[in-house]
């Protein structure tokens, strides 16, 4: 099966039809919810504390609903208006922004206690316009994300890298932006169940001693 990122830019691929699947197809919903739950677990948030979180590529709000169920407040950004309109229809509690993560996260310093992103980051590895340079867009994204997170906060990305080079590309730009962390791979030996999470930390007052 060809990868959606190769078919069209995200704001075109995630049109009204595709957006509907994210409210109607129970298999899609189950998978997104499970991955969101795992991502939140990896955030290691303080117990029983309502946090303010960012959902990057929030789409129709499936991942956001899991944040709500766990007592958190969230703001989501997504490049697809059709997906956000579905989120609005579902009356999610999170606040929504139409925004391209490759252009940066448009928030003040220290805003969020954490961030999650479910099945979105692989889109940034693609150049959809001649002016798009994936390395630059990834760097702009990670550096602006770093800035808008509070000290010692985490950002967890479930994503579908195409190959090892893409994992390397993404990790390198994240480290360059100041994060530290790495990949967590669930069910590494199963092609079907295998899930890849990039776990990033801002580190707070910890001494940074990576190269």
């Amino acid at each position, binding site marked *: 099966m060809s990868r959606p990122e190769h078919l069209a830019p995200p704001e075109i691929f995630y049109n009204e039809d595709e957006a509907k699947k994210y409210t109607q197809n129970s298999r899609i919903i189950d998978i997104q919810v499970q991955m969101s739950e795992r991502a939140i677990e990896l955030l290691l948030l303080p117990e029983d*504390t*309502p*946090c*303010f979180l960012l959902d990057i590529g929030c789409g129709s709000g499936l991942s956001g609903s899991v944040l709500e169920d766990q*007592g958190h*407040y969230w*703001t989501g*950004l997504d*490049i697809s*208006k059709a997906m*956000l*309109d579905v989120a*609005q229809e579902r009356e999610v*509690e999170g*606040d*929504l*922004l*139409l*925004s*391209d993560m490759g*252009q*940066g*996260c*448009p*928030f*003040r310093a*220290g*805003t969020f206690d954490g961030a999650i992103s479910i099945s979105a980051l692989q889109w940034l590895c693609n150049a959809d*316009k001649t*002016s798009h340079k994936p390395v630059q867009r990834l760097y*702009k994204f990670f550096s*602006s994300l770093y800035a*808008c997170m*509070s000290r010692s906060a985490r950002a967890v990305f479930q994503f579908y890298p195409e190959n090892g080079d893409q994992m390397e590309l993404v990790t390198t730009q994240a480290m360059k932006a100041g994060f530290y962390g790495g990949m967590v791979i669930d069910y590494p030996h199963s092609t079907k169940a295998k899930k890849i999470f990039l776990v990033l930390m801002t580190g707070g007052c910890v001494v940074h001693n990576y190269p």
Partner: protein
Amino acid sequence: MKLITHNMLTSKCMKGVTVGYPLKIQAVDVKTSEVDFNPEFISRLIPKVDWNVLCEAAESVGFLDDLPRELIENYENDVDFLKKAHRVLLEVDIINGELVCPETGRKFPINNGIPNMLLNEDEV
């Protein structure tokens, strides 16, 4: 767009903009909707909020009501105060209008409650 989001939102991703904060609100349609009150969340959020910006935003859309313009001491223990902050931060919702970048005058439309922060190619 809730005022909590407005309080955090900037236009600094735009080329040539340094701070891009606060964005000016030109509201056309504003509504309020009830959100469960969580005093712990509001107390944790307040240190991150730019209180002046919040008051000015609330006033500009006509919902300042009796929210104190100065942040009070020991607000964590003042349920009445936290409720007022909760209302302004989470319950006031701008449905249609515009956000204006304070440095460039660039307008970001708000439609169906969602601000459009997408930049043109020559703005990044």
